[in-house]
C-alpha cells in the first residue's frame, strides 16, 4: 500500500501542466504531478510515485549525502575489520 517508487521525469505535456511522463527502468507511465505544483518539475527530475501521483521530488543531494554517509560507515567497518585482522595476526 505504501508502495512508492522513484521514477525519472522524461516528458512534460504542453496542454496539461499537471501531467508528466516518468520512466522506471525503461517502463513508462503518465502520472499526475499536481501535488508538486510548487516544485516546478522538469525533465530529468526524479519523483516518488504512488498510485499514479508524484508525492515528492527526490532530493538528489540528500540522496548522495545519504549514500556517502553509508559509504563512510562501510569504510569505518572495513577499517575496523582490517584492524581486527591485524591484531589477530600479532
Amino acid at each position, binding site marked *: 500500500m505504501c508502495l512508492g*517508487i522513484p521514477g525519472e521525469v522524461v516528458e512534460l505535456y504542453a496542454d496539461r501542466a499537471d501531467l508528466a511522463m516518468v520512466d522506471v*527502468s*525503461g*517502463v513508462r507511465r503518465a502520472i499526475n504531478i499536481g501535488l508538486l505544483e510548487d516544485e516546478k518539475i522538469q525533465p530529468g527530475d526524479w519523483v516518488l510515485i504512488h498510485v499514479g501521483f508524484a508525492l515528492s521530488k527526490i532530493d538528489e543531494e540528500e540522496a548522495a549525502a545519504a549514500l556517502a554517509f553509508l559509504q563512510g560507515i562501510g569504510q569505518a567497518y572495513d577499517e575496523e575489520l582490517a584492524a581486527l585482522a591485524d591484531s589477530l595476526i600479532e
Partner: protein
Amino acid sequence: MTPEQQVQASWAEEAVREAALQESGVAAGPVGREHLTTEQQVLQRIDAARQRKARIKEERITLAHGAGGKATHTLIDALFLEAFRNPLLEALEDQAVLSVGGARIAFTTDSYVVSPIFFPGGDIGDLAVNGTVNDLAMSGARPLYLSCGFILEEGFPVADLQRIAASMAAAAEAAGVSIVTGDTKVVQKGKADGCYVNTAGVGLLERPVELGAHRCRPGDAIIVSGPIGDHGVTIMLARGELEIESDVTSDTAPLHGLVAALLDAVPDGVRAMRDATRGGVATILNEMAKASNVAVILEEDKVPVRPAVNGACEILGIDPLYVACEGRFVAVVDGDAAADALAALQGQPGGEGAAVVGRVKDDPPGLVLLKTGFGGTRIVDMLVGDPLPRIC
C-alpha cells in the same frame, strides 16, 4: 455505522470450528482449548495442516482457481483427481507418458483464453501451438501432432481468425509439428470472449529418459532457460488498463530445440523439466520441492529478469518469480552436470540467457527458500489468489 447493531461472520466461525475439529479429531470443543505455547509447536501444527488432504471450500469457481497457484492445485487434487483417479493421472506432470504398442507416447492438452488476443510478441495462436509443444517437450518427447479446437464468439471478425490461423501455421512449422485434426464451435455473443482455443498434442519419447518432479535430490542444480516474467508483464500492459508503456514483448517460443540440446549434452543428468507458465517459476519450484520432498534454495541475484520487467513489477508491487512466461522452462539437473547443461542451453538460439539459479538441499523439505540479493532469506510459497487473470 453504530456500535450497537452487530452480527457475526458465519463463514469465519465455521472455518475456526472446522479447523479445531480436524486437529483434535473429536467433537469440537471451545476454541480456547489448551494452546501450544512454543513457536516450534505452532510451526509443527502448521506443517500438519499443510499436509492435510485438499478440500475445496468455495461454492463457486473464482479467478484464483485459474491462476496456477494454491487454488488451482486444490481444485485439481480435490475435484478432478478425486473424480478421475488413475495412476497415469496421479503423476500430475505437464503431460502423460503412455505406453502404446511398445512406443512411449507423450500426450497433453491445454486451453488458451488469453486477453487481449493479440499482444506484442505474438497472439493466442502462437501460445496455442508453443504451449502444447512445450508441455510435450518437457517429458523429453519429440512433439509430432497437434489437434486444435476453437470456441468462437458470434461476431468475432473473420480477419482476426485468419490472423490467428496464420500464426498457428507459422508456429507449427517452426516447431516441426502438424495440426492434423480440429473442431470449431460458435457460441452466442457474450458467451465467449472473442476466441478460445484448445490444443492437444502427441509426441514420441524416443530417448530412454525418465523425468518427473519427484526425482529431484539434494545436490541438484536448478536452471532457468532465460529471463523470466516477460509474457505476464506484456499481457498486463497490453490490457491497456494500467497505462504503462514499455518495450517488453511476450517470450512465447517452442522449447523442444533447447530441450533436445540439453538432453543430448547430459542424457542421464536431467531429473525434471517444467515450463514456467501460470504461477511463474515460483510455482514450478514449489511443485518440485513438494513432489520430491526436498528444499529448493534459490538465489535472487542469479535469477535473470529484464530491467523493464523488473521496473513494471516494482511499480505494480508484483514479484517476477510469480509472473508467467511462455517460452521458458526450469530444469533440475545433477549438480555435477550443471556446467555442461548450462553450456548446452546457452549455445542454442533462445537459450542465451540461461542461468543456474539455485540448488536442491534436503532441509527444510517441501519448501522453496530465497536468498535475497541483500543476503537475507525468505520463503517463496505457492501463489495465493490471482495477480494476473487470464494470461495464457
